[in-house]
Protein backbone atom coordinates (compact mmCIF):
# COMPACT_ATOMS: atom_id res chain seq x y z
CA UNK A 1 0.00 0.00 0.00
CA UNK A 2 2.88 2.35 0.80
CA UNK A 3 4.25 2.08 -2.76
CA UNK A 4 0.93 3.13 -4.29
CA UNK A 5 0.67 6.06 -1.87
CA UNK A 6 4.15 7.24 -2.82
CA UNK A 7 3.24 6.94 -6.51
CA UNK A 8 0.08 8.95 -5.93
CA UNK A 9 1.94 11.58 -3.96
CA UNK A 10 4.55 11.80 -6.71
CA UNK A 11 1.85 12.32 -9.34
CA UNK A 12 0.29 15.02 -7.21
CA UNK A 13 3.62 16.86 -6.99
CA UNK A 14 4.02 16.84 -10.79
CA UNK A 15 0.49 18.18 -11.27
CA UNK A 16 0.75 20.80 -8.59
CA UNK A 17 3.89 22.33 -10.09
CA UNK A 18 1.87 23.41 -13.13
CA UNK A 19 -1.40 24.38 -11.39
CA UNK A 20 -2.64 26.18 -8.31
CA UNK A 21 -2.30 24.25 -5.09
CA UNK A 22 -5.92 24.55 -4.05
CA UNK A 23 -7.22 22.38 -6.94
CA UNK A 24 -4.51 19.81 -6.41
CA UNK A 25 -5.30 19.38 -2.72
CA UNK A 26 -8.79 18.23 -3.46
CA UNK A 27 -7.46 15.71 -5.98
CA UNK A 28 -5.06 14.12 -3.57
CA UNK A 29 -5.89 10.82 -2.01
CA UNK A 30 -5.68 10.47 1.70
CA UNK A 31 -2.07 10.17 2.74
CA UNK A 32 -0.18 10.43 5.93
CA UNK A 33 0.85 14.05 6.44
CA UNK A 34 4.21 12.97 7.79
CA UNK A 35 5.19 11.15 4.58
CA UNK A 36 7.17 14.05 3.09
CA UNK A 37 9.48 16.21 5.17
CA UNK A 38 8.13 19.78 5.12
CA UNK A 39 11.53 21.38 4.66
CA UNK A 40 12.33 19.70 1.31
CA UNK A 41 12.45 22.26 -1.55
CA UNK A 42 11.25 19.79 -4.19
CA UNK A 43 8.17 18.84 -2.22
CA UNK A 44 7.22 22.25 -0.90
CA UNK A 45 4.08 22.71 -3.07
CA UNK A 46 2.85 19.26 -2.02
CA UNK A 47 3.67 19.91 1.60
CA UNK A 48 1.80 23.20 1.50
CA UNK A 49 -1.19 21.50 0.02
CA UNK A 50 -0.94 18.88 2.74
CA UNK A 51 -0.69 21.63 5.31
CA UNK A 52 -3.80 23.23 3.90
CA UNK A 53 -5.66 19.96 3.99
CA UNK A 54 -4.56 19.42 7.54
CA UNK A 55 -6.62 22.50 8.43
CA UNK A 56 -4.03 23.71 10.92
CA UNK A 57 -3.43 27.12 9.30
CA UNK A 58 -4.63 30.16 11.21
CA UNK A 59 -6.15 31.69 8.12
CA UNK A 60 -8.05 28.56 7.10
CA UNK A 61 -11.72 29.02 6.56
CA UNK A 62 -13.45 25.94 5.22
CA UNK A 63 -10.91 23.33 4.22
CA UNK A 64 -11.66 19.83 3.07
CA UNK A 65 -11.05 17.77 6.17
CA UNK A 66 -9.15 14.96 4.52
CA UNK A 67 -6.55 14.80 7.23
CA UNK A 68 -8.64 15.51 10.26
CA UNK A 69 -7.53 12.93 12.74
CA UNK A 70 -10.31 11.17 14.61
CA UNK A 71 -7.86 8.71 16.03
CA UNK A 72 -7.07 9.38 19.62
CA UNK A 73 -3.41 8.71 20.29
CA UNK A 74 -3.06 5.41 22.05
CA UNK A 75 -3.19 6.20 25.67
CA UNK A 76 0.04 5.70 27.50
CA UNK A 77 -1.86 4.77 30.65
CA UNK A 78 -3.90 2.14 28.77
CA UNK A 79 -0.88 0.28 27.46
CA UNK A 80 -2.90 -2.23 25.48
CA UNK A 81 -1.54 -1.06 22.16
CA UNK A 82 -5.01 -1.33 20.62
CA UNK A 83 -6.80 1.27 18.53
CA UNK A 84 -9.06 3.60 20.46
CA UNK A 85 -11.16 5.98 18.39
CA UNK A 86 -13.86 8.46 19.27
CA UNK A 87 -16.23 6.04 17.62
CA UNK A 88 -15.07 3.29 19.94
CA UNK A 89 -15.66 5.51 22.95
CA UNK A 90 -19.17 6.34 21.79
CA UNK A 91 -19.75 2.66 21.06
CA UNK A 92 -18.57 1.70 24.54
CA UNK A 93 -20.84 4.30 26.15
CA UNK A 94 -23.77 3.09 24.05
CA UNK A 95 -23.09 -0.50 25.13
CA UNK A 96 -23.04 0.52 28.81
CA UNK A 97 -26.50 1.99 28.48
CA UNK A 98 -27.74 -0.95 26.47
CA UNK A 99 -26.47 -3.45 29.03
CA UNK A 100 -28.13 -1.50 31.85
CA UNK A 101 -31.46 -1.48 29.99
CA UNK A 102 -31.30 -5.16 29.11
CA UNK A 103 -30.56 -6.08 32.73
CA UNK A 104 -33.54 -4.03 33.84
CA UNK A 105 -35.92 -5.93 31.59
CA UNK A 106 -34.36 -9.31 32.29
CA UNK A 107 -37.18 -11.22 33.95
CA UNK A 108 -35.07 -13.62 36.00
CA UNK A 109 -31.35 -13.95 36.37
CA UNK A 110 -31.89 -17.64 37.08
CA UNK A 111 -33.24 -19.78 34.25
CA UNK A 112 -36.87 -20.99 34.59
CA UNK A 113 -37.29 -24.59 35.69
CA UNK A 114 -38.97 -27.18 33.48
CA UNK A 115 -41.67 -29.27 35.09
CA UNK A 116 -41.57 -33.04 34.66
CA UNK A 117 -38.13 -33.77 36.11
CA UNK A 118 -36.03 -32.59 33.16
CA UNK A 119 -32.33 -32.01 33.84
CA UNK A 120 -30.73 -29.12 32.02
CA UNK A 121 -27.19 -28.96 30.64
CA UNK A 122 -25.90 -25.83 28.95
CA UNK A 123 -23.07 -25.58 26.45
CA UNK A 124 -22.91 -21.98 25.29
CA UNK A 125 -26.01 -21.36 23.24
CA UNK A 126 -26.97 -25.04 23.16
CA UNK A 127 -29.26 -26.51 25.80
CA UNK A 128 -29.91 -30.18 26.47
CA UNK A 129 -32.81 -31.47 28.57
CA UNK A 130 -32.77 -35.09 29.64
CA UNK A 131 -35.20 -37.31 31.42
CA UNK A 132 -35.53 -41.02 32.13
CA UNK A 133 -38.83 -42.82 32.05
CA UNK A 134 -39.23 -46.55 32.70
CA UNK A 135 -35.91 -47.45 31.14
CA UNK A 136 -36.18 -45.01 28.28
CA UNK A 137 -33.95 -41.98 27.96
CA UNK A 138 -35.47 -38.88 26.42
CA UNK A 139 -33.22 -36.00 25.33
CA UNK A 140 -34.34 -32.67 23.95
CA UNK A 141 -31.70 -30.42 22.39
CA UNK A 142 -32.02 -26.91 21.05
CA UNK A 143 -29.83 -23.91 20.16
CA UNK A 144 -30.90 -20.35 20.84
CA UNK A 145 -28.97 -18.92 17.89
CA UNK A 146 -31.37 -17.64 15.21
CA UNK A 147 -34.32 -18.65 17.36
CA UNK A 148 -36.20 -15.36 17.33
CA UNK A 149 -38.54 -15.14 14.36
CA UNK A 150 -38.72 -11.82 12.49
CA UNK A 151 -41.63 -9.63 13.45
CA UNK A 152 -43.43 -8.75 10.23
CA UNK A 153 -46.09 -6.61 11.79
CA UNK A 154 -48.53 -4.91 9.45
CA UNK A 155 -48.20 -1.16 9.37
CA UNK A 156 -50.37 0.26 12.08
CA UNK A 157 -52.44 3.35 11.45
CA UNK A 158 -51.35 6.38 13.35
CA UNK A 159 -52.66 6.33 16.85
CA UNK A 160 -53.52 2.65 16.69
CA UNK A 161 -50.43 1.54 18.59
CA UNK A 162 -48.64 3.39 21.33
CA UNK A 163 -45.08 4.15 20.29
CA UNK A 164 -43.60 2.81 23.55
CA UNK A 165 -45.17 -0.63 23.07
CA UNK A 166 -42.54 -2.93 21.67
CA UNK A 167 -43.34 -6.45 20.61
CA UNK A 168 -42.28 -9.05 23.15
CA UNK A 169 -39.22 -11.01 22.04
CA UNK A 170 -39.88 -14.74 22.26
CA UNK A 171 -37.41 -17.43 21.33
CA UNK A 172 -38.96 -20.34 19.43
CA UNK A 173 -36.06 -22.64 18.62
CA UNK A 174 -36.21 -25.75 16.54
CA UNK A 175 -35.63 -28.70 18.85
CA UNK A 176 -34.69 -32.34 18.48
CA UNK A 177 -36.20 -35.06 20.62
CA UNK A 178 -34.31 -38.34 20.91
CA UNK A 179 -35.93 -41.37 22.46
CA UNK A 180 -33.59 -44.21 23.31
CA UNK A 181 -34.72 -47.54 24.67
CA UNK A 182 -32.39 -49.62 26.86
CA UNK A 183 -30.01 -51.90 24.99
CA UNK A 184 -31.00 -50.35 21.67
CA UNK A 185 -28.46 -49.34 19.07
CA UNK A 186 -30.74 -46.70 17.61
CA UNK A 187 -32.63 -43.71 18.86
CA UNK A 188 -35.92 -42.52 17.42
CA UNK A 189 -35.30 -38.89 16.58
CA UNK A 190 -37.94 -36.21 16.06
CA UNK A 191 -37.06 -32.89 14.46
CA UNK A 192 -39.59 -30.44 15.89
CA UNK A 193 -40.33 -26.77 15.49
CA UNK A 194 -42.74 -24.02 16.46
CA UNK A 195 -44.73 -23.32 13.32
CA UNK A 196 -45.09 -19.67 12.39
CA UNK A 197 -48.81 -19.23 11.87
CA UNK A 198 -49.28 -16.89 8.93
CA UNK A 199 -52.74 -15.92 10.14
CA UNK A 200 -51.54 -15.07 13.60
CA UNK A 201 -51.40 -11.42 14.53
CA UNK A 202 -50.06 -12.00 18.02
CA UNK A 203 -53.37 -11.22 19.62
CA UNK A 204 -54.48 -14.70 20.60
CA UNK A 205 -55.89 -15.66 17.24
CA UNK A 206 -53.45 -18.50 16.59
CA UNK A 207 -55.08 -21.63 15.21
CA UNK A 208 -52.08 -23.85 14.67
CA UNK A 209 -50.61 -26.48 16.97
CA UNK A 210 -48.21 -25.10 19.54
CA UNK A 211 -45.42 -27.26 18.17
CA UNK A 212 -45.12 -29.62 15.22
CA UNK A 213 -42.97 -32.53 14.16
CA UNK A 214 -41.15 -31.97 10.87
CA UNK A 215 -39.07 -35.10 10.40
CA UNK A 216 -38.63 -38.45 12.08
CA UNK A 217 -35.84 -40.92 11.64
CA UNK A 218 -33.76 -43.58 13.37
CA UNK A 219 -30.25 -42.48 14.20
CA UNK A 220 -27.40 -44.46 15.77
CA UNK A 221 -27.46 -43.99 19.51
CA UNK A 222 -24.91 -41.56 20.87
CA UNK A 223 -23.86 -40.18 17.49
CA UNK A 224 -23.87 -36.41 17.18
CA UNK A 225 -23.83 -36.27 13.37
CA UNK A 226 -27.07 -36.81 11.50
CA UNK A 227 -26.81 -39.98 9.42
CA UNK A 228 -28.00 -38.94 5.98
CA UNK A 229 -28.45 -42.50 4.80
CA UNK A 230 -31.14 -43.28 7.40
CA UNK A 231 -34.65 -42.98 6.02
CA UNK A 232 -36.20 -39.72 7.16
CA UNK A 233 -39.96 -39.44 7.38
CA UNK A 234 -41.12 -35.97 6.39
CA UNK A 235 -44.44 -35.00 7.91
CA UNK A 236 -45.45 -32.49 5.22
CA UNK A 237 -47.50 -35.01 3.32
CA UNK A 238 -47.86 -37.60 6.04
CA UNK A 239 -51.08 -39.44 6.83
CA UNK A 240 -52.67 -37.41 9.61
CA UNK A 241 -53.54 -40.44 11.70
CA UNK A 242 -49.87 -41.48 11.73
CA UNK A 243 -48.90 -37.93 12.63
CA UNK A 244 -51.29 -37.95 15.57
CA UNK A 245 -49.81 -41.24 16.78
CA UNK A 246 -46.34 -39.69 16.67
CA UNK A 247 -47.57 -36.68 18.66
CA UNK A 248 -49.24 -38.96 21.20
CA UNK A 249 -45.99 -40.95 21.46
CA UNK A 250 -44.16 -37.77 22.37
CA UNK A 251 -46.88 -36.63 24.75
CA UNK A 252 -46.65 -39.93 26.66
CA UNK A 253 -42.96 -39.16 27.20
CA UNK A 254 -43.55 -35.64 28.45
CA UNK A 255 -43.11 -33.73 25.20
CA UNK A 256 -46.51 -32.10 24.93
CA UNK A 257 -47.94 -28.60 24.67
CA UNK A 258 -47.05 -27.80 28.28
CA UNK A 259 -43.47 -28.85 27.64
CA UNK A 260 -43.36 -26.81 24.43
CA UNK A 261 -44.59 -23.70 26.24
CA UNK A 262 -42.02 -24.13 29.03
CA UNK A 263 -39.29 -24.75 26.47
CA UNK A 264 -40.13 -21.43 24.80
CA UNK A 265 -39.84 -19.66 28.17
CA UNK A 266 -36.54 -21.36 28.92
CA UNK A 267 -35.16 -20.62 25.46
CA UNK A 268 -36.19 -16.96 25.70
CA UNK A 269 -34.41 -16.64 29.06
CA UNK A 270 -31.28 -18.37 27.74
CA UNK A 271 -31.22 -16.22 24.63
CA UNK A 272 -31.55 -13.05 26.67
CA UNK A 273 -28.79 -14.17 29.00
CA UNK A 274 -26.46 -14.93 26.09
CA UNK A 275 -27.30 -11.62 24.44
CA UNK A 276 -26.34 -9.68 27.58
CA UNK A 277 -23.15 -11.73 27.91
CA UNK A 278 -22.32 -10.91 24.29
CA UNK A 279 -22.89 -7.20 24.86
CA UNK A 280 -20.60 -7.31 27.90
CA UNK A 281 -17.89 -9.09 25.93
CA UNK A 282 -18.30 -6.60 23.12
CA UNK A 283 -17.98 -3.73 25.58
CA UNK A 284 -14.80 -5.21 26.98
CA UNK A 285 -13.39 -5.77 23.52
CA UNK A 286 -14.17 -2.24 22.34
CA UNK A 287 -12.86 -0.55 25.46
CA UNK A 288 -9.66 -2.48 25.95
CA UNK A 289 -8.37 -5.98 25.24
Amino acid at each position, binding site marked *: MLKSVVRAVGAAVRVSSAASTSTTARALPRVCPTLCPPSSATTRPFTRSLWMLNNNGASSGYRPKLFTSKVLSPSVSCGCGGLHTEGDKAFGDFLSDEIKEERKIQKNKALPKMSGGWELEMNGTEAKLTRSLAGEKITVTFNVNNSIPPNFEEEMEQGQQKPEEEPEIVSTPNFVVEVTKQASKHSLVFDCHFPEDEMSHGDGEEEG*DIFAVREVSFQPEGDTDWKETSYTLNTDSLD*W*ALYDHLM*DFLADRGVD*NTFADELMELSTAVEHQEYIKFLENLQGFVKCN
Partner: protein
Amino acid sequence: MGVVLRNLQKVVPLRRARLRKDVDTLRHILGVHKFDLGIICVDNNRIQQINNIYRKKNVPTDVLSFPFYEDLRPGKLPCPLQRDELNLGDIFLGVEFVMKQCQEESLDLHGALTVITAHGICHLLGYRHETEEEWTEVCMEIDA
Protein backbone atom coordinates in the same frame (compact mmCIF):
# COMPACT_ATOMS: atom_id res chain seq x y z
CA MET B 1 -58.38 -33.60 3.19
CA GLY B 2 -60.41 -35.29 5.93
CA VAL B 3 -60.22 -34.04 9.47
CA VAL B 4 -57.87 -31.24 10.46
CA LEU B 5 -57.21 -31.66 14.17
CA ARG B 6 -55.54 -28.99 16.28
CA ASN B 7 -54.78 -29.04 19.97
CA LEU B 8 -54.29 -25.47 21.15
CA GLN B 9 -54.48 -26.12 24.86
CA LYS B 10 -52.24 -27.64 27.49
CA VAL B 11 -54.69 -28.15 30.34
CA VAL B 12 -56.05 -31.53 29.28
CA PRO B 13 -53.77 -34.42 28.30
CA LEU B 14 -55.43 -35.19 25.03
CA ARG B 15 -54.75 -38.21 22.86
CA ARG B 16 -55.11 -37.06 19.30
CA ALA B 17 -55.11 -40.44 17.58
CA ARG B 18 -58.07 -41.64 19.67
CA LEU B 19 -60.05 -38.47 19.00
CA ARG B 20 -59.33 -38.61 15.27
CA LYS B 21 -60.36 -42.26 15.07
CA ASP B 22 -63.63 -41.52 16.85
CA VAL B 23 -64.36 -38.50 14.67
CA ASP B 24 -63.68 -40.56 11.54
CA THR B 25 -66.14 -43.18 12.79
CA LEU B 26 -68.74 -40.48 13.39
CA ARG B 27 -68.27 -39.08 9.92
CA HIS B 28 -68.97 -42.49 8.42
CA ILE B 29 -72.02 -43.07 10.62
CA LEU B 30 -73.52 -39.69 9.73
CA GLY B 31 -72.72 -40.15 6.06
CA VAL B 32 -70.40 -37.14 5.85
CA HIS B 33 -67.04 -38.87 5.40
CA LYS B 34 -66.56 -37.12 2.06
CA PHE B 35 -66.62 -33.75 3.76
CA ASP B 36 -63.66 -32.01 5.38
CA LEU B 37 -63.97 -31.02 9.00
CA GLY B 38 -61.93 -28.95 11.42
CA ILE B 39 -61.68 -29.93 15.12
CA ILE B 40 -59.93 -27.45 17.39
CA CYS B 41 -59.40 -28.30 21.06
CA VAL B 42 -59.20 -25.26 23.31
CA ASP B 43 -59.18 -24.40 26.98
CA ASN B 44 -61.80 -22.50 29.04
CA ASN B 45 -60.27 -19.11 28.39
CA ARG B 46 -60.39 -19.53 24.66
CA ILE B 47 -63.83 -21.11 24.41
CA GLN B 48 -65.24 -18.42 26.69
CA GLN B 49 -63.73 -15.74 24.49
CA ILE B 50 -65.24 -17.27 21.35
CA ASN B 51 -68.59 -17.82 23.10
CA ASN B 52 -68.63 -14.17 24.09
CA ILE B 53 -67.74 -12.89 20.63
CA TYR B 54 -70.21 -15.00 18.68
CA ARG B 55 -73.04 -15.71 21.13
CA LYS B 56 -72.63 -12.86 23.61
CA LYS B 57 -72.32 -15.42 26.43
CA ASN B 58 -69.24 -14.74 28.50
CA VAL B 59 -68.91 -18.26 29.90
CA PRO B 60 -67.04 -21.39 28.85
CA THR B 61 -68.97 -24.11 27.11
CA ASP B 62 -68.41 -27.61 25.74
CA VAL B 63 -68.69 -27.04 22.00
CA LEU B 64 -69.05 -24.27 19.43
CA SER B 65 -69.71 -25.02 15.77
CA PHE B 66 -69.01 -22.83 12.77
CA PRO B 67 -70.76 -24.27 9.72
CA PHE B 68 -69.44 -23.84 6.21
CA TYR B 69 -73.01 -23.96 4.93
CA GLU B 70 -75.12 -21.65 7.06
CA ASP B 71 -78.64 -22.36 5.87
CA LEU B 72 -78.81 -26.13 5.60
CA ARG B 73 -82.10 -27.88 6.21
CA PRO B 74 -81.53 -30.24 9.11
CA GLY B 75 -80.23 -33.54 7.87
CA LYS B 76 -80.01 -32.46 4.23
CA LEU B 77 -76.47 -32.87 3.01
CA PRO B 78 -75.03 -30.16 0.81
CA CYS B 79 -74.32 -30.99 -2.84
CA PRO B 80 -71.27 -28.93 -3.71
CA LEU B 81 -70.12 -28.60 -7.27
CA GLN B 82 -66.48 -28.07 -6.47
CA ARG B 83 -63.99 -30.02 -4.38
CA ASP B 84 -63.22 -26.88 -2.32
CA GLU B 85 -66.79 -26.84 -1.07
CA LEU B 86 -66.74 -30.36 0.35
CA ASN B 87 -66.38 -28.82 3.76
CA LEU B 88 -68.68 -28.93 6.75
CA GLY B 89 -66.94 -26.31 8.86
CA ASP B 90 -65.11 -26.13 12.18
CA ILE B 91 -65.89 -27.41 15.65
CA PHE B 92 -64.25 -25.92 18.73
CA LEU B 93 -64.18 -28.35 21.61
CA GLY B 94 -63.96 -26.83 25.10
CA VAL B 95 -61.95 -29.78 26.38
CA GLU B 96 -61.24 -28.23 29.77
CA PHE B 97 -64.97 -27.66 30.34
CA VAL B 98 -65.72 -31.22 29.23
CA MET B 99 -62.99 -32.68 31.44
CA LYS B 100 -64.45 -30.97 34.49
CA GLN B 101 -67.88 -32.41 33.68
CA CYS B 102 -66.37 -35.88 33.24
CA GLN B 103 -64.60 -35.64 36.59
CA GLU B 104 -67.86 -34.65 38.29
CA GLU B 105 -69.83 -37.44 36.63
CA SER B 106 -67.06 -40.07 36.49
CA LEU B 107 -67.15 -40.30 32.72
CA ASP B 108 -64.43 -41.18 30.25
CA LEU B 109 -63.09 -37.99 28.69
CA HIS B 110 -62.55 -39.29 25.18
CA GLY B 111 -65.95 -40.98 25.15
CA ALA B 112 -67.56 -37.71 26.18
CA LEU B 113 -65.61 -35.81 23.53
CA THR B 114 -66.92 -38.17 20.87
CA VAL B 115 -70.55 -37.52 21.88
CA ILE B 116 -69.93 -33.78 22.01
CA THR B 117 -68.29 -33.86 18.59
CA ALA B 118 -71.38 -35.64 17.25
CA HIS B 119 -73.43 -32.78 18.71
CA GLY B 120 -71.14 -30.32 16.94
CA ILE B 121 -71.45 -32.11 13.60
CA CYS B 122 -75.24 -32.00 13.93
CA HIS B 123 -75.01 -28.23 14.21
CA LEU B 124 -72.85 -28.14 11.09
CA LEU B 125 -75.60 -30.10 9.33
CA GLY B 126 -78.24 -27.55 10.20
CA TYR B 127 -79.69 -29.01 13.38
CA ARG B 128 -80.66 -26.49 16.04
CA HIS B 129 -82.00 -26.91 19.54
CA GLU B 130 -83.62 -23.62 20.29
CA THR B 131 -86.94 -25.39 20.77
CA GLU B 132 -87.83 -28.61 22.55
CA GLU B 133 -88.82 -30.14 19.24
CA GLU B 134 -85.49 -29.26 17.66
CA TRP B 135 -83.62 -30.65 20.68
CA THR B 136 -85.46 -33.95 20.34
CA GLU B 137 -84.49 -34.05 16.67
CA VAL B 138 -80.81 -33.59 17.56
CA CYS B 139 -80.87 -36.25 20.27
CA MET B 140 -82.45 -38.71 17.87
CA GLU B 141 -79.75 -38.01 15.33
CA ILE B 142 -77.00 -38.51 17.93
CA ASP B 143 -78.59 -41.68 19.30
CA ALA B 144 -78.83 -43.09 15.81
